[in-house]
């Protein structure tokens, strides 16, 4: 509506990639992503939405790898409505119909640095068992009216969902002017701790 060109903003740069997913039961999946953010946010560069290639599992690994890069910069005046990444995974069912295999969302990490997020994915369940059958038969599973629903809390209580798998996303976060504006999300030592523990666990293994 009104763009405050000369007003002060802070910037959030999201780099990273949708690394892959772990759907034990499904194969040949692709992933869509989009961002959901509040009124005070606007993307300045980069793609706001995207769709990955279709990937299938190899004989050795049962992971689906997309390695789909994300690169978006947001500007904002208010941390309220911090962007969320919404991913939805689709793939063919036994009859070749494209059906949804999972929805998931995560907030973009606050702290600068590298983060890995594993998002549990879920799909809405049919209301009736008969619908489940016909849905399977006709290849029309229930879908959210909008994938962005999963980024909001409102109205979710009317749905029932079933969990499906995981999507792993790595983020590299940079922020600009956050601290100057009085928002200190600077890297706590948690990230270092995390890396330390992970290395330790690796050592332990």
């Amino acid at each position, binding site marked *: 509506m009104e763009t405050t060109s000369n007003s002060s903003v802070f910037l959030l740069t999201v780099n990273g990639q949708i690394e892959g997913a*772990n759907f034990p039961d499904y194969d040949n999946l692709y992933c869509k992503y989009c961002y959901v953010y509040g*009124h*005070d946010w606007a993307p300045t560069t980069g793609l706001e939405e995207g769709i990955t290639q279709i990937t299938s599992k190899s004989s050795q690994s049962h992971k689906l790898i997309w390695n789909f890069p994300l690169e978006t910069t947001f500007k904002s005046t208010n941390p309220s409505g911090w962007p969320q990444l919404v991913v939805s995974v689709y793939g063919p069912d036994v009859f070749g119909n494209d059906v949804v295999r999972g929805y998931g969302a995560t907030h973009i990490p606050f702290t600068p640095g590298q983060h890995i997020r594993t998002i*549990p994915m879920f799909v809405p369940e049919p209301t009736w068992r008969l619908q489940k059958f016909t849905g399977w038969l006709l290849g029309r599973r229930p879908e959210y*009216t909008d994938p962005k629903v999963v980024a909001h809390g409102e*109205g979710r209580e*009317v749905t029932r969902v079933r969990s499906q798998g995981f999507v792993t996303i790595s983020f590299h976060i940079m922020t600009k002017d956050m601290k100057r504006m009085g928002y200190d999300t600077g890297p706590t030592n948690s990230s270092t701790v995390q890396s330390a523990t992970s290395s330790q666990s690796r*050592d332990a293994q």
Partner: protein
Amino acid sequence: MEKMAASSDIREKLRKKRRALQDTLVKNKNEDDIQALVPSAKFNVDNQPTAMKEAEGSDEDPGESLRRTLRAQREKRKTKLLEQSFVQDEDVGEVSPTQYNSPNEGPSSRVDDSVVSTRPPTGSQRGVSVKSEQPSSSLHLDTFVTRHLQEKLRAARSKGESLQQQETSRDSSEPVSRLQRLKDRDTITRFDREADPTSSGRDDDPLTLRARVKFREPARRVEKDFPTTEEAYNFFTFNYEPDRPSKPESKSRKRQKQRDGVEEDDRDENGQEEAEVEEEDEAEEDNQDQNEFQSEEAPLVRNEDDLFVIDHSPQDFVEVRKAEYVGLKKRVQRDRELLFTPSFRTVPTSVKLPENTKPRFLEEEGLYVGQRPAVSLTNENISENRILKMAEGSKWFGDDGKILALPDPIKESSTRPPLFHMDEELDPALQTVYRKAMKSQYANLYIAGATDPEGDYQLDVDVSGLIFSHHPLFSREHVLASRLAQLYDQYLSRQQNNLAGHLTEKLNGLRKALRNMMRIHGEQGSSEALQHRISEYSLEVRNTRQLRDLEQEKDRTLLRSIIKVWKEIKSLREFQKYTNTPFKLFLRRENVDRALDEWEYEGEILKEVLELEAESEEQYQKKLAEYNKQLEEWKLWRKKQKAKRKKKKKKKKGQTQDDTEEEEQEEEEEQDQTESEDPFEEAPVKPEVPERPDIGSLEQWVREKASRIRRKPGEAILVPELCTSGGVTASDLCPRAEIARREDVSRRSLFIKILYNYKEVSRTDSRSLSTDFRVHFGQIFNLKVLNCPHSINLQVFEEIGSSYSLLAQVFVPVPDPSVVTGRAPIEEIEFSSNQHVMFDHEGVGSDVPLSFESDGSNKLTLLTSGKLSCCVSWGIGEEGVPLAPPLSQHPGGTHRGLGHLDAVSYIGASGLYDMKKIGEWAVQSRLDPNDPKNTSIMHLLKVASSGEVTDPDYFRLEHLQEEFNFVSDQEMERSKRFRLLRLRNQEAPEFRNYKFVSLLEREVSDKVFQDYEKRLKEGETIDTRQHLDPHRAVVAKYLQQIRESVINRFILAKHHYQLSDLVIEEEIPSIGILGINLFKLAESKRPLKPQRKERKKVTAQNLSDGDIKLLVNVIRAHNIPIRKPQSSKPGQSSQSAVQGSDWYLSQVQVRPFVEVSFQRTVLQTTTADGPNPSWNEELQLPFNAPNGDYSTGSLQSVKDEVFINIFDEVLYETGPGDKSRATSIHTQIEKHWLGSVKIPFSTIYSQSKIDGAFKVNTPAVLLGYSREHSSTSVYDQWRSTQGGTFVRLFITVEPQLVPGESIREKIKEAEFNSQEDERLLQASEKFEKHAAGGYPDRPCITTVIDLSGKTIFITRYIRPLNPPREFLDAFPNNPQEATSLVARYVSLIPSLPDQVSFSATCDLLSTCDQFLTLLAGDEQEHAVLLCNYFLFLGKKAWLIIGTAIPEGPTAYVLTHEQSGYFIWNPSSGQFYEKGDTFCPLQTVGCLVNSDNVWFNIQENPSPLHTNFDITKAKMWKPFFSRSFSHPGLSSVQPEELAYRQTDKAAAAELQDRVEKILKEKIMEWRPRHPTRWNRYCNTTLKQFLPKLEQGRGQDVAESHRVELQNLLGDYRISGFPLHLPFSEVGPIIEAVHSTGVHNIHSSNVEFALAVYIHPYPNNVLSVWVYLASLVRT
């Protein structure tokens, strides 16, 4: 165990062999190597028996030393383990030089290698390490052994060592024999360890073996001096099995058999040791083996030394024999002797159980028997058989004759959840993450945010001892003795305190001071203060004296009772003739100077007497004073009485008497009076004169007291001394009962359990009870404390034999953190127990009455009691740091419990404590402000007194809310940014989609709020300027308010989500749909007649500008007016019509095109020809939502309309230009408006598509055009009678928006309250649901919502209502005319769809009076009003709920007249016959009248095919039927409508204003061109308009038009009147704009505009605008 034993055995053998070899080598060292080996080997062989014998003989000695060394070794084990690594390093160094010493270095080293390679992995592995460790560990052996070994090392460890290794390898590389041997060894080892006598047999066995195997190599060497590498290899890998000598073997086996038997017996005996050995670690095992070995070898070596050095040669050890075959039978027999094969068969139960017992069946007996682990029957039988062979095998069997077994421990289901297995890795979420172990914060309750979480605290509990003051085993003497001891203790403590002495001194001091004071100030006369002090002093003296007397008396009685008890003891001892206790009391006499003593005594008495006298005198004085005072009062009172009586007497007697007489009389009468006359007035009792104290008796009393409590003067001071020097009579001299008691005592022992926080942490050793009933423990327990100490409890237990019982518990207070070990004194804590104990011996027992008197009187009951001396303190760390919790963190502060009450006061130092009380207390207790202990309290008081601190007397709901507010409320209010954020959050319309609220306060501009504030302000004031009509302004305002309130209701409903809002799901398919779907599979992919497919719906929320397009498909039009031939002469028009056929053919009738304008975007189709054009064009218009808000609510409130205008494109030749006259023709294009269709966007949005033929709104008069066609075709003629122009359109929105979901359901959920009966509502819901289920496309409405949001049944709206009077009066004889007038009146009320007014599809139905007041409403309201009017007019009328074009779901009115059914469109006032195909009504859903609702259940819902006979049950389903009768619903409509006449002057004024505004607007729309108004034309047009109004828009103005043309003559005129209901100016302007009249840009154009407003009752205004353009030709 076995393995270990085996390996140790091997090692042992190796050692022996090596020793032997070494010795031989030592012996032959000086000889030539090659030569020496051979003879020595021979020698060995020869001497073998000797060696054996020697070994045998020496066995006794090793047996002894072995045991000894073993013990030594075990003790050293630990230290050795530590040294192990170091030692091993040493080994390498030691071993390697010895190898260099070896004469034939090359082969030996090679041999070494091969040993390593050929050695089997098991069994012998240890041999290596042992070998290497051996020398080092020898360091730890006895000095003897060490010396021995060192000697040997020095002497001869050269080649021999490598040879040994070969032996090892060879041994182990004999697979067949090894098994056998391992077995043998196994048994041998066992014997070794305990060095049984039977082990004597063992030694010869290994020796033989050793000898046999060992020196094959030297033997070979004799033949081949230097073996090559290959040979060496062969040598080592070769199997020497056949060489085995059979004789010693079998011999040894025989022995082993014997041993087997012995061994099994021994096993149990050895059990303990074995167990111990088993416990050792793997690492230790090595060590141990080695140790054992060494200890074993030590003695052997010593023997060997003697043995071999002298007379053995290598030959001694070598024996060459043939292989011996053992027959199979023999072997089997031998095996049978050796081996035991348990049988598979079931063992009979009788064998398993002890004799003569029957097996019990525990389960049947009702005992719980757990499930036994599953073992196959065979295995069970085998093991049973095996167990039975064992000694004491039967103990393995239970009462039920089965092997004892614990219940099956295996759980039925696994406790671990199954993981689903990916190949390489787990789910990332399930991956194990290493976390460092953390100390639990909670366990350590001491640390409430303490600085040192690592701090560990230690409590030292010192239990030093126990003394019984009474014990059940006390004899009588003991009882007395303990009493004596107690008294003596008391005496000692009193003596130490010397209270009496102190008090005496104090008394003396006080007396002295008093005396001094009297003396100094006595003469000067006493001042007030002095008097006071003196009295204070004397009071003090008196108190002190009393105290002293008390103490002295106590001392005296104590001394007396001590002596008394001692006497009792003495008499008891005499009586029982033995002593039990060593106590003896001496009384030391201290003689005193009698004279001095007496003087002091007397002086003391004197002083006391004097003081007492003074005191009593003083008391007397006081009493006297009091008496005087009272007397005074009494006298005063008597005087009054007297005066009274005098008056009375005067009255009575009237005479005077003598004074004296009088007085006497008075005395008498006074008595009477007080009794009789004055009973009411209490007379003060005449006080009695106090008695003078008897001074003489005082002295006597004092003396008596003194003699009681004090030593008599001159009497010696008695000092008792208790000692324990007395002897106790020996037991044998005592009577039997006493002996029994003493024995009982000696049997008892005591121990103490220490319980920390009710958990036993430790216990003392058990100490026996001594004869003096004292127990000394003297143990200190260090408790590492993690949890906050709550209690420390010492439990005293008495142990008799193996049983023990709790005597008493002692709770020790938790020490203060400052109490540290070493500084804490030992405390004596008393305890007692109320156990009842009685004995038959001398022991007095406990809780048993006991008497020392001979007559049994004066009984006392004694309870077990005693004193426990112990000490609990905090430990001290290494650096002297006390291991105590920090002082400040000491738990249990008073504030802790209270702090929970109010968190705020807990956080801040505000007053939860009652400061006033604390202050009062501080004043009362006279706290010393300078005492450092009190600093905190004083500080607190100071702080508290400085500010007002009050305890909140209210309850805080959210304790800490204020603490977490990051700004104050005022700041929140003041900040523009916060205000903006809050408004956005509240969804204020202006800020609902406000983006980028500035980050900084200063960047928020003030302008942001301008609109909002303006709106708020406008809320109060009505702006009449914008509305031309003041009434409308009020209405608009009212509407706005209703709208807001309804919106607020809907905000709630909107946040109420349903599944369909979130999830797109297939409908539950019915069988039919399934069938269709199956049928679809066979459908051709590209059908010839494609059908419109359902498009995917898009929710509005993720749309942005430019995403939505409005698609208008203009297909064709019918019956467009055609041009009239233009003639310059007025009279020719008719003529031209006559000669029309020619003209018609040559001339184009009309060239229409369609222009669609929406949101000021204008698009047009191509131009077509003729009155029935076909365009078939699609126009795309962009759509922009207001404020970029694409939410459903916002889209619904879009008021924009789509204008579809039909124009005629007219080409005019403007005549040749001046210059290019010959070459070019200038043509001018003009477009003439022919008609328009308006479709509100909200209709399109809610219906998602609109498809159909729309009647074009054509003006009543179109100048220059006529609708008359010269065509004679039947079709056209028929059409023309319809008198309308139609255009066929298909309009939709791309992408398809999800239409605003019917909020009806949500409203129900949001609980709009209703006054209707619940049953009715349920029935209506059911009815509607049923209707929707059966006929989804037919609207059915039974309930509606009124303006206040209540649900109301629709029939309540139908009621006959009176139309304005003037309509009825206008045509009194023509009801038909009246009907049409009424219909017109209704249609003149502006239409406003509910969607627009209430921003959501919500059927709000206002009543007719509200409707007439608001002057706005949708079709339903129009229909209701019209229906009510018709009912008033006596017609049969119904409301039709159905769908129409273009409105969608709407309401029409049905009337029934003689001529048939008529359908009325209430918004336009037009009516259609039932059979009219152009009736916009498409489906008839239901009919409503005041009685009932009928739902249409006919096959075809179109009005054409509908039978409107509602009595037919097959066609109409009534709501109220027999089963659910009409409950008699009253109407919500008013009984009568009141109309007020509209002010005509106001209408005229409005008319002028509208005209002015329109003229201005047209000029404004033509900014580049001058706009000229043709005044003449204006006035002419103005005259036409009232006529048009009268004709109700009928085409009556033909004559006027002709007239106009006559008037204008030279002008080419095109124009039309527009007719509108009046609501606001805006729509009028919009309508004028859409005609595009202003777009004529020719230079010589003139305009004409006339406005006429006709007022109808109740401010219903009919607006006519005549618009024309004139071009001068």
